[in-house]
């Protein structure tokens, strides 16, 4: 059984290579379709650049080569996991990503955990009390949060918790220039994390609450729940031990698929809260035609998404032993 799982993981990892390379090729084609290049943008930012200077920039960064040559060079590099040098930032892409990925992962994972925990708890609570005011309150609140733009929610949270109550910092990831102990640092980051993680997480919590409620109600209608009730088990035990495990599968599936979305959503949240993550970097790379950086971030994020989906497949097996990995 365990050997089967290991073989499954290895096979999936092997499949991952062509998938990621295909994504990389597609990304390159899409990014190249946009008009203009980074040399123009960089020269433009400098305010005053001659044609010779712009062409010099193109030569320095290999943007003067024929597109086929650029593509082959890019694919060759990507296959060797070399992401190249950013034209605008003039630093190795891998360093730029490594600088910011931890902050984004921290924000995403916290938001996701928060969203799943809150969403599942509320969804179960609503399903258990279907049709009551609690159910209605949860459903309507979820709908409201779902319909609220995240950047607006973020700004409102800043206005309330940071300006009015002066409880939490308005942005950033840590206090700057203050000597702190290791524990102090962790608490400091945690304090800065609350608002952005809540903003990003609330939207998904609303989605999961609604999904969880529907999924629970479906499971409640199945025969084994009737059997459990007939055995005289308490409603709590039925809900949390029997129904939940079965009802969780769609939520896990959705969460896996939404890792990509979450990365997209973090662009806005990171901007509002000045969170030093990848989100803002990918946006700047896109508008600045910083091809290597854009493709590098997309490459890393596609690897993350594919890996998370592999983990989701493994979790299926844990939740439902009938699912085996062959």
């Amino acid at each position, binding site marked *: 059984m365990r050997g089967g799982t290991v073989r499954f993981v290895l096979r999936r990892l092997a499949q991952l290579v062509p998938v990621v390379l295909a994504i990389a090729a597609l990304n390159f084609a899409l990014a190249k379709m*946009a*008009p*203009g*290049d980074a040399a*123009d*943008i*960089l*020269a*433009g*930012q*400098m*305010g*005053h*650049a*001659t*044609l*010779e*200077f*712009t*062409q010099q920039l193109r030569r*320095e960064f290999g943007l003067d080569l024929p597109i086929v040559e650029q593509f082959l060079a890019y694919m060759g590099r990507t296959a060797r996991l070399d992401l190249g*040098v950013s034209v*605008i*930032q*003039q*630093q190795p892409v891998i360093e*730029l990503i490594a*600088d*910011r990925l931890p*902050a984004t992962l921290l924000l995403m994972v916290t938001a996701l955990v928060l969203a799943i925990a809150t969403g599942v708890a509320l969804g179960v609570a609503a399903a258990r009390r279907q049709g009551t005011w609690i159910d209605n309150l949860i459903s309507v609140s979820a709908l409201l949060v779902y319909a609220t733009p995240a950047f607006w929610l973020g*700004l409102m949270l*800043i206005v309330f918790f*940071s*300006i009015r109550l002066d409880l939490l*910092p*308005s*942005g*950033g*990831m*840590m206090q*700057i*220039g203050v000597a702190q102990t290791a524990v102090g640092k962790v608490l400091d980051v945690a304090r800065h994390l609350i608002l952005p993680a809540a903003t990003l997480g609330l939207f998904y919590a609303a989605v999961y609450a609604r999904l969880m409620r529907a999924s629970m109600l479906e499971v409640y209608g199945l025969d084994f729940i009737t059997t459990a009730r007939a055995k005289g088990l308490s409603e709590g035990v039925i809900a949390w031990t029997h129904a939940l495990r079965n009802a969780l599968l769609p939520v896990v599936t959705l969460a896996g698929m939404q890792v990509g979305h979450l990365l997209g959503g973090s662009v806005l949240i*990171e*901007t*509002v*809260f*000045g*969170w*030093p*993550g990848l989100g*803002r*970097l990918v946006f*700047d790379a896109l*508008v*600045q*035609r910083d091809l290597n950086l854009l493709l590098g971030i997309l490459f890393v994020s596609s690897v993350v998404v594919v890996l998370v989906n592999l983990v989701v497949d493994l979790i299926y097996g844990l939740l439902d032993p009938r699912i085996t990995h062959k």
Partner: protein
Amino acid sequence: MNTRTLSLALVVAAIALGAALPAAAQKKGGTLTYTFHPEPTAMSTISTTAVPVSLVASKIYESLLDYEGPGMKPLPGLAESWTVSKDNLVYTFKLRKGVTWHDGKPFTSEDVKFSIEKVVTPFHSRGKTYFGEVSAIETPDAHTVVFRLKSPVPYFLRAFQASESPIMPMHGFTAEEIKEGKIRTAKIMQAPVGTGPFKLKEWKKGSHVILERHPGYWKAGKPYLDQVVLRVIPDGAARAIAIEKGEVDLAPMSGLPPAEAQRLGRLPGITASQEGNEGLGPIMWLEVNNRSKPLADVAVRQAISLAIDRKRLVDVIWYGQGKPASGPIVSGNPNHYDKKLGPLEYNVDKANKLLDAAGYKRGKDGVRFKLTQNFLPYGEEWVRQAEFIKQELRKIGIQVETQSLDMGGWLKRIYTDWNYDFTSNFTHNYPDPTIGVQRAFISTNIRRGATFSNSMDYANVKLDALFVKAAQTADGPARNKIWEEIQAILRNDLPVIFLMEISYTHVWNKRVHGLITNGVSMYSSWDSVWVD
């Protein structure tokens, strides 16, 4: 308002008094925190002269000279003194002794020669503009540098600003970086070693930069500040909140949305100033494609200019962050601006008559002809301005369709494809109009793919000759005469529609003092800035 006038007067007085100001007024120590977005991509303007880099690099690196006042009067910097030969072809700088780099090594004339020859001239975006005429740089001893020029460069003494010609340590580059020309991506661009009052302490990408006092700084008792901190806050509203809460002391270079800058400037503890940009000379215009049929007619361009209420544009769209333009040179330039020029006329009737006389009759729907406009993708004010222009031109029977592009698309359409009718554009005079004005209007700069060049296809032989003459005449009354003539021609020909002298607004907490010192105040070293 009174307080503002008073503080302005104090700033002016501080400039006038200079070092003579009583030492008791200035406090030593403390941290100045500023915010700007985007964050710098490097710590040297050799990598790029984009605003965020210039802001931070100018605290770390110095050049041979310092500057004073809006007219950018040269003062000693890394050079203690200098002489200029009678024919304006030989500049001899005596360097200050005892200056050390942030790593403790001594600064010598070899560093200057290396920086200008191997770093600034080939890699700085304006390097060839400043030093293209240099035929030789000699270093007779460790503290003397001699520049020999092929022909006179009237703005040569304005070239030695920290962000324009930073002096970098020769020992800061590896042999390989120098040999392969990997200057722009050299390690020192991220880990700077300068002679400036501040050195890099910490750079957490995406979050903050901390600069700390350089203890070996050559100016005795300077800098006053212990630290300069940059906080990266990507959202404009969040930057304003940080200033309002006092978490951040300064938002330089229009770092806040114009509405927020205006609002905060009215709060008692905060100053919003448009001073200290004269050496940059930011200016905005409608760039007009003179190839496009009705726009090739000067009467049409003059009518468009007459139809735009620039005062309202400044007040309503830009919340007062600027003033109506009167030509290609900004009025804050005390050396070259023709003070006799009045504002450009706003007269819708006259505009209509001009178009009638030129034969552009209105159709049944009141429309004479249609044009497409693009706008600079720098944010929402630019979108609102495009809406405003559309409304103004409707009054004279020109129907305008607005087209939105991002920066990459905009640059390509305007400067490579030349496929546009008109677009908003924003550029700088820089310390001299030969650098900042000539490039947009001289006909030799009608070159496909050259950004911020003469995209209009405007060619005027007389003007070309004047530009060449101005570039070779020593600064003074004779040269000013040439610039007056150039301003008159451009105001009449209107190859672009001059709109407004867009101001860089700096918003700071009143606990900060001594920020405005010259025409590039935010790109100055801040060695004399102090906080309460």
